[in-house]
């Protein structure tokens, strides 16, 4: 099997799984940036909160952890709205430095708050489907990962329908394309900011639930690295571009896993940024970015 198609197929599947987590994280981040032009470094903490909400309610209720998406997403939407209203709206338009320090402050608040409640020990949980595997030819696909890929696809389709088919979604897109124009057309852009921030946080919460369900370990400090990669993805895909976030997330997931396979796990994180540098040298606006973003 050494170097065979089956092994490469298996690695591609792990890349697809990693890509799904990145896509959800980066799509939320890009949605927020697209509408508000806000840089929120604490976005990874929403993912971390998603893992703990899932873990907490799973232990408490014993529900199927995938059903807990219906809890983690609304709770994180609520948390996102509160954070936007209390932290980001007062400093909107006052400079990037303020946004950076607000988000750094939020990182510490969320991390220490969760550590205080749940301690900072590493946690993990076991999905009820953890032992089920489906063989597709020579490739073994754990059922959980198939569900994770399917859930991500469903969430993205729902998001697309919301943004393209509903009045509120169209208002969000209008705010993203031309904030002043949207205001002149009677759109309450501050309401759109709040909603967008909530949806972005909700998508990160969904990523957190899927992270926990996949059996990966988590602790209060686990959000920083995925957040940094989320930023790399949105720059790679193009700031403000949802398709860019999806393609970028998938690309980073695949490249990371194939790099780990061919060059070793030490290169896994570095390759994301090497890819980013290469893309920016060739196309400074990112894969799907527009001039001026």
């Amino acid at each position, binding site marked *: 099997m050494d*170097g065979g198609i089956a092994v490469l197929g298996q690695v591609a599947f792990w*890349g697809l799984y990693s890509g799904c987590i990145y896509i959800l994280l980066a799509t939320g981040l890009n949605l927020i940036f697209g509408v508000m032009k806000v840089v929120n470094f604490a976005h990874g903490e929403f993912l971390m909160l998603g893992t703990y909400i899932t873990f907490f309610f799973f232990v408490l209720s014993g529900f199927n952890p995938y059903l807990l998406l219906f809890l983690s997403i609304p709770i994180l939407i609520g948390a996102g709205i509160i954070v936007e209203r209390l932290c980001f709206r007062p400093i909107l338009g006052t400079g990037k430095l303020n946004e950076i320090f607000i988000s750094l402050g939020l990182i510490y608040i969320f991390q220490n708050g969760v550590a205080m409640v749940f301690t900072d020990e590493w946690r993990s949980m076991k999905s009820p489907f*953890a032992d089920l595997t489906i063989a597709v030819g020579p490739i073994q696909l754990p059922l959980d*990962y198939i569900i994770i890929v399917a859930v991500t696809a469903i969430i993205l389709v729902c998001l697309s329908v919301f943004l393209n088919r509903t009045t509120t979604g169209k208002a969000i897109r209008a705010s993203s394309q031309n904030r002043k124009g949207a205001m002149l057309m009677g759109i309450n852009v501050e309401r759109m900011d709040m909603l967008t921030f909530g949806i972005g946080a909700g998508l990160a919460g969904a990523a957190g639930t899927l992270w926990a369900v996949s*059996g990966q370990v988590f602790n209060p400090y*686990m959000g920083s690295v995925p957040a940094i990669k989320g930023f790399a993805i949105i720059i790679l895909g193009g700031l403000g571009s949802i398709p860019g976030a999806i393609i970028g997330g998938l690309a980073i997931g695949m490249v990371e896993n194939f790099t780990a396979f061919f060059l*070793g796990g*030490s290169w896994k994180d570095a390759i994301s940024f090497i890819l980013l540098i290469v893309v920016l040298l060739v196309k400074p606006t990112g894969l799907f970015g527009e001039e001026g973003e």
Partner: protein
Amino acid sequence: MRHDCIIYTILGLLLIALVLMSGCTQAPAATGPSEIKIGVVASLTGPASTTGKDIWQSAELAADEINAKGGVPVRELGRSLPVRLVQGDDESTREGGMKAVTKLITQDQVHVLVGGYSSAVVSAHQSIVADNKVPYIISGASSSAVSRRKDLDTSYMFFHRPNTDDSAEASIQFLTEVFRPAINAKFGFSDGRKLRVAVIYQDSPFGKGQLDAVKSLIATKNLPIEVVAEEPFKMGESDFRTVLTSVKSKNPDVIYAVTFLNELVPMTQQARRDVGLNTVIMAIENNDDPDYYSGVGMYGDGMVMESRFSPYAVPAGSTEAATRKFLSDFDRKYGGFAGMMGAATYESVYIAAAAIEQAGSLDRAKIRDALATIRVPQMMEIMKNGTITFSPDYRESKFDLYVVQLAMDQKLGEPRPVIVWPGNLKAGDFSIPDWYTPGSP
């Protein structure tokens, strides 16, 4: 009248202040320090925080016991002093370790340092310890590259842990003497067949040190072992699926995993559950921790681990009573069991106290000299010749190591270890799990 009243009040207050101040100056002058300050370097936050908490709590337990017995006699002062521990959180990072150790030495002015877990983190703050000449009993940092470095003065550093060569030697000896004959017999392999070992290691001095030690041992002793894969991973990694897929494609008989606790749990689970890698994992001693057993669950069944202190497998003999007392005291105070790093740090606090008593002084140079010649009876970990003492060359203590095998306990819902090697310590025989699949014939 009102004016006089104010003047008398002010005078009265001044008089009271004068009396109080004179009282201060007339109190017996303090002759020297009132306590022994021991700095505990531990990863209280960050990826290694589970182990860091264990280190801190165990040190606290030792200090409480010493203080309950009246403290440590210091001859030069003519009295006993209590031990006060000072926390130094290295944040599981090199920079965090440098900050913490600098603070402990310069601001808190500790007399001795104990602790230190990651080789990478310890190696970054060794120069600060060397420059300030503070005695440091290091209970982690197993890489020989840390204890045997030539670029700085390590004479104030004492290593109360087996180095990577020691632990690799015990693990490889087990694989050669027990594991290889067992699979050869069960699967009908020829005696000349080499054992196929895949090494998955943390990309750090600790991981690289283990890998080098394993390869060097195989080469110098001409052992019938072939390293079929060398797979590094980044410290703190939690997704090992691709690395394990790569390892699976090399058809190993056993995986030699050089990891921290928070890395071994997902690695073990992902190997069996996600990648379908039905191979025994051999882990290193720093993972013999209650959190590993509870975290890994059923996927830990059948795996083996080199150890020097196991919370659930206490070797019979001279250290048994002390170990059981430590575990029970720890459980009573903190609820739960201590791991190996906790045990080593607990012992380190006692070694520090013994060195101060022997030196009869809180002078750092005198404490260092006492540590160089100290002989403390073994406590919980089994030492060579039954005594904790540091080698004259690199100031390393020497342990009798053993190997445990995990078996799932259905009642507890998590595995429990049994000592299976060496012969003089073992409580059961190593057995090949039913699900095990060997590598290529």
